[in-house]
C-alpha cells in the first residue's frame, strides 16, 4: 500500500522579489513499511522536502497524499500526528530546562491524548531507556540517549511515518550503530514508514530500500539499495557521493577548479 505519494512538489521560501524556489518538481512514492532515503549536499533541498511533508513549510505546490488522504496547506490535528520528525542535533532539539518526562508529555497535551503516564512509559521502553529517565534533564544524558529521547518524542503520538533528518550525523560511530539498529527494530516492530535524510550514502544504504539523490532542488536519480551496493548507479553525481562515503581518493590529475 502506498503510504506517501508526492507529485510535482515545489517548495519555496520568501515572497515577492526575495522568493527562492528551493525544491523543484519532485515526485516519488513510498510504500508502507518502506524506508526512502534523500541524499545530497547542504542546500540541495532535502530537508525542505521533509519540512513540506511534516507540515512545517506550507509554501508548496503540487500534491501530497499521506495514508490515502490528500493533504492541503492546512492540516487537521490527526493529519499532523501521522508523521513526526526526528532532528539532527539532540543537543539542540530538546528543551534544556524541561525534564525528559515533561518533553514527552508536551505532544500528548497538544494532541489531547489520554493515559499520558502510560504512554510516556511505553515510549521510553520502546527506545530502550530506563523509566526513571523521565525525571532527568537533557544535560544529564549522553548524546545517544538524547537522540533516543528525540525518537521517543516522535513515537509517542503513534505516527505511521517518521521523518528522520540526519538522525545520526551528530553522533559518534559506535553510538550511530546503536541508533541505526534501534531505528531498524522499531520499523519492523511498529510497521513504520521512514524518510531518511542524510549526506552519508553508507548510512542511507544501510537503512533504506530506495534512495533519491538530490542536487539543486531536484532528483537526479532514484536508486535501489541493490544498485547502490552493486555500484551500478546511473548518474555520475551519485558516484561522486559514493566515493565520498568511502573516504579520500588521492587524485593524480591536477585538482579541481575553485568553487565559487
Amino acid at each position, binding site marked *: 500500500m502506498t503510504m506517501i505519494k508526492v507529485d510535482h512538489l515545489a517548495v519555496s521560501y520568501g515572497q515577492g522579489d526575495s522568493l527562492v524556489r528551493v525544491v523543484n518538481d519532485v515526485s516519488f512514492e513510498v510504500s508502507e513499511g518502506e524506508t526512502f532515503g534523500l541524499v545530497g549536499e547542504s542546500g540541495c533541498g532535502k530537508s525542505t522536502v521533509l519540512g513540506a511533508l511534516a507540515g512545517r513549510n506550507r509554501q508548496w505546490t503540487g500534491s501530497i497524499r499521506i495514508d490515502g488522504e490528500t493533504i492541503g496547506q492546512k492540516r487537521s490535528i490527526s493529519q499532523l500526528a501521522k508523521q513526526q520528525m526526528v532532528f539532527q542535533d539532540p543537543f539542540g532539539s530538546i528543551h534544556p530546562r524541561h525534564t525528559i518526562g515533561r518533553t514527552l508529555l508536551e505532544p500528548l497535551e497538544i494532541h489531547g491524548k489520554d493515559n499520558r503516564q502510560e504512554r510516556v512509559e511505553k515510549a521510553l521502553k520502546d527506545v530502550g531507556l530506563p523509566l526513571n529517565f523521565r525525571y532527568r534533564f537533557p544535560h544529564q544524558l549522553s548524546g545517544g540517549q538524547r537522540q533516543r529521547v528525540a525518537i521517543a518524542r516522535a513515537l509517542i503520538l503513534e505516527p505511521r511515518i517518521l521523518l528522520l533528518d540526519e538522525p545520526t550525523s551528530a553522533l*559518534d560511530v*559506535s553510538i*550511530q550503530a546503536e541508533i541505526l539498529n534501534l531505528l531498524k527494530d522499531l520499523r519492523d516492530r511498529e510497521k513504520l514508514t521512514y524518510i531518511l535524510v542524510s549526506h552519508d550514502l*553508507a548510512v542511507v*544504504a*544501510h537503512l533504506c530500500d530506495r534512495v533519491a539523490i538530490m542536487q539543486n532542488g531536484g532528483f537526479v536519480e532514484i536508486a535501489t539499495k541493490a544498485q547502490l*551496493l552493486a555500484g551500478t548507479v546511473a548518474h555520475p553525481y551519485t558516484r561522486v557521493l559514493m566515493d*565520498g562515503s568511502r573516504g579520500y581518493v588521492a*587524485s593524480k590529475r591536477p585538482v579541481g577548479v575553485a*568553487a565559487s
Partner: protein
Amino acid sequence: MLKPPENILTVQNMSVEFPTLSGVVTAVRNVSFSVGREKVGIIGESGSGKSTVGRSIMRLQPPQAIVKADRLQFEDINLLTAPEEQMLSVRGRRISMILQDPKYSLNPVMTVGEQISETVILHERVSRKEARQRTLAMLERVNIRDPQRVFDLYPHEVSGGMGQRIMISMMLIASPSLIIADEPTSALDVTVRQQVLSILDDLVTERNLGLIFISHDLNLVRSFCDRVIIMYAGRVVETIAAADLDDAQHPYTRGLLNALPSLDHPRDRLEVLRRDPAWLEN
C-alpha cells in the same frame, strides 16, 4: 612501512589534567607518539582526548590545565620548558593549526587577505606589499581562481570550502614544518571535502611537512593518512599503518570498524561496541 629517519615531533608519556571542583579530570593519559614527514591520523570518539593532544602540543591549554610529559620535543625546541616568547615564534610559523569550521575560526571583521598576510608580517617582518604578493600566490596555490578579488572579501562572503582553503593558505604561508589539522573537513560537503583534502595532500607532499590529522571519520583517515593512532578515553590503544587498519588487533579498533555502515560490506545489523573496562588499564 619504514619509519622516516627524522622525527619532527616526539611526544613521550604526555598526560593532561584539568582540575575541576569535583576533582582532577585526566583528559589524556600517558600518550606517546612521534611524527616525521608524514601524515599521521588521530582517531577517537568525542571526549577521547584527541583535540586535547593537538592543543597541548601548541601549548594552547587554559592556564589551569596541567600538561605533564617525559619529553615533548619539537625539532630543536623543548615544548615543556620553552618560554612563552619563544612559543610566540613557534605558533603559526613552525607549527600551525587548521580548525574545523572556517565560519568560526576566521576573524569576521577582517578581510581574508589581511588575515593571511598578518601571519607573514608578524613572523617574517616583511613589508605589506611583499606580504600581499605572498598572500596572492598562496591563494592561487590553494586553487582560488581570482585571488585579487578574494583578497578583499570578508569571511562571510566566501563558501565553506573556500573558507577552509583560505584557512589552509593562512596556515601554510609561513612554511611551518608541522601542521595540526583538527577535523578540518567535518563541516564540509563530500565533494568539497575531496577538493580541500587533495590540496592539503599536495602541499604536505610538496613541502615535505609533518601533518597530524585529527578526525573521528575512520574511512577518511585510513584513506588519507600514512599512520593511524587510535585513542580511547585519553589513551592510545593502538598505532597502526593506515593500510593495515583492517588487521587491527585491539578490540576497540575492531569494534569501531564493525560499527561502521559500509557500501562495500553491507550487513543486516551493525555491531554495537561493547566497552571493556580493561581498556582503561594500560
